[in-house]
C-alpha cells in the first residue's frame, strides 16, 4: 500500500508542479491570448458538455480508430509479405523509402481531391500516415526471425499459415508493437490536421473554430482535451502491449538476470 502511494506520488508530482507554475504565472495575466489558467478551468465544464463530447470528440476518436486500424491491417499484411520474400523487398524498398519521406500532412490536399471532404478523406489521411512505421517495423521484425527457430519449425513440418501464426508474427510482434506505438502519435496529429482542413465537427475543427471566433479560453480547453486524449490512448496502448508482449518482457528480464 505504501509503495503504491509512493509510486502515485512519483507519477503525479511533476504534472502537479507544472500545473501549479502555469496557474501562478498566468494568474495576473491580462493578455487576451494567454488567459489565466483559472479562467480556462472555469470555461472547461461549460465548453466540454456531454453533448459536445458526443458531437466533436466521438467523431474524432472514431476517425482515428478507423484510420489506425486500417493502417495496422495493411501495414502488418504488406510488411509480412515484403519481409518474407527477398525479391519483393528488393523491388519495394526504394519506393517505400520515398513514400515514407513524404510528410503525411502534405497529402491532405491531394487526398481531398479524390476522397472528398467527408470522413473517408480523414480516415484515408490518418491511415496513409500511420501505415509507414507499422509497415517498416513489420518488415524488419519478419526478416529477423531467428534461424534456429526457423529450422526447428521446418524440421517439425510447421509451414504455411501455421508458420505465420505460430512463428513469424509472434517473433515479429515486439517490432510490430514498436511501429504501432509510433503510428499512434502520428495518427493523433493527422486526426487534428485533417479536421482543420475541411470539417464540420471534430476536435481539430473545434479548436480552429474557437480561435477564429476569438474564444481564446475555449481554444485552450480544446488543447487540454487533445492532450488528455493522447495521454489516455497511450495508457490504453501500454496496457494492451504489456498483455500481448508479456512473454517478451519476461524473456528480456530473464536475459538480464543471467547474461
Amino acid at each position: 500500500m505504501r509503495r503504491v502511494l509512493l509510486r502515485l506520488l512519483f507519477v503525479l508530482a511533476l504534472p502537479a508542479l507544472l500545473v501549479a507554475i502555469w496557474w501562478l504565472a498566468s494568474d495576473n495575466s491580462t493578455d487576451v491570448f494567454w488567459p489565466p489558467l483559472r479562467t480556462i478551468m472555469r470555461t472547461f465544464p461549460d465548453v466540454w458538455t456531454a453533448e459536445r463530447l458526443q458531437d466533436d470528440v466521438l467523431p474524432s476518436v472514431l476517425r482515428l480508430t478507423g484510420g489506425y486500424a486500417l493502417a495496422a491491417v495493411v501495414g502488418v499484411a504488406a510488411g509480412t509479405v515484403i519481409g518474407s520474400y527477398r525479391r519483393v523487398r528488393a523491388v519495394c524498398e526504394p519506393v517505400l523509402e520515398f513514400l515514407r519521406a513524404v510528410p503525411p500532412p502534405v497529402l491532405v490536399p491531394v487526398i481531398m481531391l479524390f476522397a472528398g471532404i467527408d470522413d473517408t478523406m480523414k480516415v484515408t489521411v490518418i491511415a496513409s500516415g500511420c501505415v509507414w512505421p507499422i509497415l517498416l517495423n513489420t518488415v524488419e521484425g519478419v526478416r529477423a526471425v531467428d534461424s534456429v527457430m526457423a529450422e526447428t519449425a521446418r524440421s517439425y513440418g510447421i509451414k504455411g499459415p501455421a508458420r505465420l501464426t505460430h512463428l513469424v508474427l509472434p517473433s515479429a510482434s515486439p517490432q510490430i508493437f514498436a511501429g504501432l506505438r509510433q503510428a499512434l502519435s502520428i495518427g493523433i496529429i493527422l486526426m487534428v490536421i485533417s479536421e482543420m482542413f475541411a470539417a464540420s465537427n471534430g476536435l481539430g475543427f473545434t479548436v480552429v473554430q474557437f480561435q477564429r471566433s476569438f474564444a481564446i479560453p475555449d481554444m485552450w480547453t480544446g488543447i487540454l482535451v487533445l492532450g488528455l486524449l493522447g495521454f489516455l490512448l497511450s495508457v490504453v496502448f501500454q496496457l494492451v502491449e504489456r498483455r500481448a508482449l508479456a512473454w517478451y518482457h519476461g524473456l528480456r528480464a530473464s536475459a538480464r538476470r543471467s547474461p
Partner: protein
Amino acid sequence: MHALAVSGLQKVYEGSGRRVEAVRDLTFTVDAGELVCLVGPSGCGKTTLLKCMGGLLTPTDGEVLLEGRKVNGPPPGMAFVFQEYGRSLFPWMRVAQNVELPLKQKGLSKSRRRELVADALESVGLTDAADAYPWQLSGGMQQRVAIARALAYEPQVLLMDEPFAAVDAQTRADLEDLVRGLWRERGITILFVTHDIDEAVYLGQRVIVLSSSPTVVREQLKVDLPDERDQLHTRVAPRFAELRTHVYEQIQAAKRGAGAVKTDTPPPR
C-alpha cells in the same frame, strides 16, 4: 532394412567464388533401436551432416534413406534436438504448448495430443513446468523441454546435434543419463552428434569417428560396455578408458590430417 542409411553423402557449399567441400563421402547405417554417437574434430561438418539427414539441407551427392524412403525435405519420422535450446523453443509459448505445436501440425486429435504431451513431459521430469514459459526455466530444463517435444513427436529416428554442449557439467551428466534411460525404456533410434569423446563413449552402443573436413567416416567402433551404465562406475572402468583413449587418438590423428592411421581397435575383453 536399416532405420537410417546414409550412402555416399557429399555436401559442397558454393558461393562468392569459394567452393567449400564440407562433407566428402559418408556412408554408414543405423539400425532400428540403436544409439549411435557421431564424434569428430571440431569443424568437421557434423552439423552439415545432421542437417542433410534431417532434410534441412540438400546434399550435393549421395542420399539418405529413412526406413527405406529417400529423404528430401524434413521427413515426419524424424525429430531434431538442437544445441541452442534457448533459440529452439518458442518463447511466446508455454512449455506444454511448445511440445504440442508439432503434434497439431501432424493433425492428431486433441485428446491424443494431450496424452502425448503429458507423457513426454513426465518422462523428462517436467510435469510441473507445463505452464511455465521456457525462459523461466534453467538451461538444462529447457533442453529437457526440447527433448520432450521430440519424444512426443514419436519419431522413427531422433537426431541430436550436440544437445548438451551449452549446459554445465553436472546438468550434462543428468541429461546424458536421461537420454540413455529414455532410449532403453522406449527403444527409440537415436543418432547423437557430439564433440565430446567421453560423452560419445559413455552414451553410444557404437561410435562413428569422423575425419576432419572434408569429412569421411574414419572408423566405426562398437562400444562393448555393459548396457547398465552409470556416471560413477562406467567412467572409471578400465574398458571405458581404453575406448576413450582409442577414440581420442583417432581424433588427434584426424586433426593432424593423417590418413588411415593404423591404430588397432582395442580388442574386446
